[in-house]
């Protein structure tokens, strides 16, 4: 869950500065920096990109080309809670399809969509490596395993 709000310029600058201080201001550290900023704010706002460009002296085109390549980084705002569903074969084979359909129905969202009230973003993720307890849902940093369709409303109701 994002710790700062994207509308708070000061918070954005601080997130970037902390990340650059932690890792160093060279281009090689770009991915760790982007990871930190994404984790802190929930995504990477344009203002953050400007600031990274200023501090790393790296063209924004390069910054965006990297940020848009990796699945876990987002340049678009995300909901307060990000739901990641594992859509890989091992989870699929043990009933993942039914859980996925229930999720979409219950939230009234399709993949990559954010709910109008800004609460949920639903995305698929590739294999998380916990295939022994598939099907798996991750909400923010919480992992739920052995999920069945009827558990979905209960799991979702735990988040405000």
């Amino acid at each position, binding site marked *: 869950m994002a710790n700062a709000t994207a509308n708070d310029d000061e918070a954005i600058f601080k997130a970037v500065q902390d990340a650059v201080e932690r890792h160093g201001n060279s281009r090689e550290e770009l991915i760790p920096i982007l990871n930190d900023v994404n984790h802190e704010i929930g995504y990477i706002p344009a203002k953050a990109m400007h600031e990274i460009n200023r501090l790393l002296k790296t063209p924004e085109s390069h910054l965006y080309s990297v940020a848009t390549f990796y699945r876990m980084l987002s340049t678009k705002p995300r909901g307060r809670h990000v739901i990641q569903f594992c859509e890989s074969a091992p989870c699929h084979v043990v009933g993942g399809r039914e859980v996925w359909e229930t999720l979409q129905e219950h939230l009234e969202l399709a993949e990559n969509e954010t709910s109008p009230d800004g609460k949920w973003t639903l995305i698929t993720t590739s294999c998380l490596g916990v*295939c022994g307890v598939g099907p798996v849902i991750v909400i923010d940093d919480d992992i739920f395993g052995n999920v069945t369709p009827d558990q979905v409303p209960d799991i979702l109701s735990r988040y405000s």
Partner: protein
Amino acid sequence: MAFYRSHILVSVDPECVSKGAHDIIDQLNDELIHRGLIDEVQVLETSRIGDPTLYGPDMMVYPEGVHYARVKSKDIPFLVEEHFLKGRVVESLRAEIKAFSDEELGAPMPKEVRVVLRNCGKIDPTNIEDYLAEDGYMGLAKALSMTPDEVIDMVMKSGLRGRGGAGFPAAKKWQLARAAQGEPKYILCNADEGDPGAFMNRRVLESDPHSVIEGMIIGAYCIGAERGYVYCRAEYPIAVRTLNIAINQARELGLLGYNIMNSGFSFDLEVRQGAGAFVCGEETALIASVEGARGEPRNRPPFPAQKGLWGKPSNINNVETYANVPQIMLKGPEWFASMGTEKSKGTKTFALAGDLNHTGLIEVPFGITLREIVYDVGGGIKDGKGFKAIQTGGPMGGCIPESMLDLQVDYETLAAAGSIMGSGGMIVMDDETCMVDMARFFMDFTQDESCGKCIPCRVGTRRILEILNRISEGNGREGDLETLDQLCKEIQQDSLCGLGKGAPNPIVSMLKHFRDEFEIHIKEKRCPAKVCRSLIHYEISSEFCTGCTVCARNCPVNAITGERRQAHHIDPDICIRCGICAQVCNFNAVIVN
């Protein structure tokens, strides 16, 4: 070294964490301070103890070896008082577990030989002393007393092949990097285990990180590298954390850093996280990612051994390859080569997933047959259903049907069968699986993960996916299968990297062994396994229906009509084939055609 009279090992397995394990740890420490016991009792984190779904959050208390399970915050004050002040076990919280009650790594099944997995679940990965007690870093000590060429020779004699999938002899790779011109040299560990269904590397990194670190230091010594990186995917946050703890502890003991063990050899290591891109498991894409760029593969030659990270000679190996090295040093190459087949020596970890009775991690010597893996180690197909196919090697692998189950598992045999070893994921499919659906599924994954750099992969996989989608929706056309055959061949030949070259493999193998299933989908517009939504119909049998209205009330789209006590009817135009009616019917009156 501080001396504690008691240790509490709290499981921080992901599921336990989601149940509040970290809060428990904080509370334990608070209570111990409050009771003046903090210098006598030490709280530590450990990996999985008992099945978290049954026991979590749980902990082990030593030296008694008591297992406390389902511990809640409110239990802590009483627990500390009873157990540590009064010396009485709290029976109400105690839970017996069998020696190895681990959902993904149970006690060894018949025919298993645990080398890489030997310490997992048995030692505390966040305590280097546990690893040292298991002859940890003795392999490194031995290596440092030999010359790099002598060490490479030993690894060469063992026959160790890269465990990432390609199976290239590890010692040969090290030789090439050692001989290459350029300074400084780098050593990297590929911990970007992205194959769906593969989680062996994850477990080793979380439960026995030092085996990998030790292997890397030995490798670095051989090639002459002073810096190393472990590239670990971001989807494995616990592995990243555990690795960092392990690296710090190794540094503190002088096993990493300047002048290791007074040998004159200096080496240090860092963890780099990915950001969610399967293609970064490809070695040149991984290097690009460490350099801070898009994870796009590069042309080879030049190979990383000549021009790798920042253009310098670099050696990349998989987690499991490194994890084998210390044992080879300690027990000797002859021991390692005594296991396996003529060309594939040693053991391999596999992650069994799918419709088996016993899924999870196993480690077996090469040469075991697939049938033994499925039935002896895997316990056979769940729910008594029939075996249809086993997919080996992940999304770049191929599926193997029943007729070929007696094949031996080694690099050459699997390749000849149209599959690959890959990193070790094996997905078992029962007879209710639709192969068209699975083909579509694998292609969906590789299409999504294609980096986009070269046309054969970027465009070719999309075209294949379009055709497979059409077929599973009932719009297959005459000539589709021939087009697929041709597309697959071209993409295999012309793609830049292993992802593209391997992406058509599942399709090729499915067309070879299950072609008739595809033809039925196209010609008869029917799905024999009753999986493809557009090709199945739900009907209510008037013979069995009692008109209880349960199905109608549960249908999410109101597709069922009928009067009480009269046979009900499903409107096929509204029905979305979710299957809920079949699940709730108590009279088995819902038929799928």
